């Protein structure tokens, strides 16, 4: 019998050693470096902030057009434009450190050595963890190269693991045949958690000009359009993973987030929804709280992976 809870539900979670006051994080690349949204969003309320992915040296990004809207979503081919780790640490991180919210730094490299050097560079910084992007579809020889090959995925995570005392989250690509193989590799490499899914590779064509709508020809599909695929993969991942799973892909509402949690995600990341509603993650937090109260659930952790099926 379900009894309605009168006390405040406990939303806190532990993700591979990172304690979050609630399970809702920002997805890398959708929340800038935090400062872009500071006047619009109470950053202190977020479970964690994952800023735009950082590389060893600054990256200028792809030639425009870089984005195109698609049915209930968008394609992007930004090309991982970012300020580089030195500027990030010097100019962007201090801003985020003002808040109580943990900062999980998303990193990517073009070689295992770059990943290793990034991890070493950030090891002495007061950050909550590293999210290692081995799955960006928009750079040649970029992260996805590592995320699609089990042994390379192992090598990257292992290299990062050896250089850092911070918790390591491996961010995985959906553009693979068997996600469970990749999950085993990154676990063996020392990942403390996994996050999925990154964007799905897609394309759009201008039929009048017979040209691709993106300067990069292909791009990463995100937004509500990808949610069913993301949910399926998170559910599959949760069956095989020994480490906590962070679910993302098209989450806009609290109901979306709850689906991921019931499917087995210990935490979620809200991404593209920020572009239409900067407060999207906060609304998700509020909605999860309401759900737990109305279902008489004391702790969010009691809901994780509780999918009922025969």
């Amino acid at each position, binding site marked *: 019998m379900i009894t309605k809870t009168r006390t405040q539900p406990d939303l806190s979670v532990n993700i591979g050693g990172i304690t979050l006051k609630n399970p809702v994080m920002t997805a890398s*690349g*959708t*929340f*800038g470096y935090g400062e*872009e*949204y500071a*006047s*619009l969003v109470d950053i202190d309320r977020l479970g964690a902030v994952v800023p*735009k992915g950082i590389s060893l040296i600054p990256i*200028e*990004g792809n*030639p*425009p*057009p*870089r*984005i*195109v*809207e698609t*049915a*209930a*979503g*968008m394609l*992007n081919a*930004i090309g991982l*434009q970012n300020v580089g780790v030195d500027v990030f640490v010097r100019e962007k991180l201090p801003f985020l450190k003002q808040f109580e919210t943990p900062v999980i730094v998303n990193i990517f490299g073009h070689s295992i050595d770059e990943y290793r050097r990034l991890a070493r560079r950030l090891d002495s910084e007061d950050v909550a963890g590293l999210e290692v992007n081995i799955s960006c579809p928009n750079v040649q020889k970029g992260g996805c190269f590592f995320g699609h090959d089990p042994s390379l995925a192992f090598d990257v995570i292992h290299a990062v693991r050896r250089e850092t005392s911070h918790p390591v989250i491996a961010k995985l690509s959906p553009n693979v045949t068997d996600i469970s193989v990749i999950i085993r590799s990154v676990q063996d490499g020392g990942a403390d958690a996994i996050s999925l899914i990154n964007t799905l590779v897609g394309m759009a064509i201008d039929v009048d000009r017979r040209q691709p709508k993106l*300067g990069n020809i292909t791009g990463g599909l995100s*937004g*509500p359009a990808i949610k069913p695929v993301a949910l399926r993969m998170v559910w599959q991942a949760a069956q095989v993973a020994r480490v906590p799973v962070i679910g993302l892909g098209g989450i*806009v509402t609290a109901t979306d987030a709850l689906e991921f949690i019931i499917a087995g995600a210990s935490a979620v990341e809200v991404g*593209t929804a*920020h*572009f*239409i*509603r*900067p*407060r999207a993650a906060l609304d998700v937090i509020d909605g999860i709280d309401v759900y737990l109260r109305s279902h008489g659930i004391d702790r969010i952790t009691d809901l994780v992976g509780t999918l009922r099926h025969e």
Partner: protein
Amino acid sequence: MKRRQWINSPQEAPTRQWTARVVDNSRVSGRAYRLDLALPASDPVQIQPGRFFMIRTSPGLDPFLGRPFSVFRFAPPGDQGESRLSVLYRAVGRGTELMTTWNKDQPVHMMGPLGQGFTVPERARHVLMMAGGIGIAPLFGLAEWVLRETEGVHVQICVGGRSTEDVLMTRELSALGAQVEVTTEDGSMGMKGRVTDWFSERVSHLAQEEEIMVYACGPLAMLAAVNTLTHRAGLPCQVSIEARMACGVGSCLGCAVKTREKGYQLVCTTGPVFDVMDIDWEDMKPL
């Protein structure tokens, strides 16, 4: 160059999410519409001309993203405590077609004001503007501001389009006190040709004058031509650039535009108004 800045003005409206209400939504000419919105809160007192709002065209998930629209006109709160924001838009795609169906009192979700607007040098005495089609929208607000807030500044604006139906707001501009010229490519109204043809001719008469400031908004090809002309004439010029964007606040990095000296800059935060000289026009591709 000393500039009048509004952006740091305590009067400037704060950036926030709004649920506005449609007051009027009517076709102006051809596929061009004017949308008048009432904003509920009373604190925005002014919006720098050239800034923009992201307006969602559907409350649901499809179309998903907001669209950027320059402020066409803004009126501070009146007796009813509502401020009025007007935008001009052209129905060219799924989102803007949806907008044409909006009726009075329809709630509209939007965010703004965003980006950097136009600045007017303190010493400018003669303002020349070129508007291509719907590009009139931000220039109208600028013309209105200059004519209201400054003294002794002559505002001359050339409004152009392919044909008569693309030429917008000429009567309203005249009523404000601007000197209005018209060009159409088919010659159906005003001078046959483009706004840049008008400018070439006009600038030869102005070459000796000083304290001229040029502003332009329109298709990228037009702005690239404006760049060549103003460079040749040695005149300062600001342009408002249109770009696809998802967020409007510098987070998605989708609206990058190549600049001459600073690599890719974002139309949403560094722009949409740029000094014409800052843009690498060679790299520009049409939307």
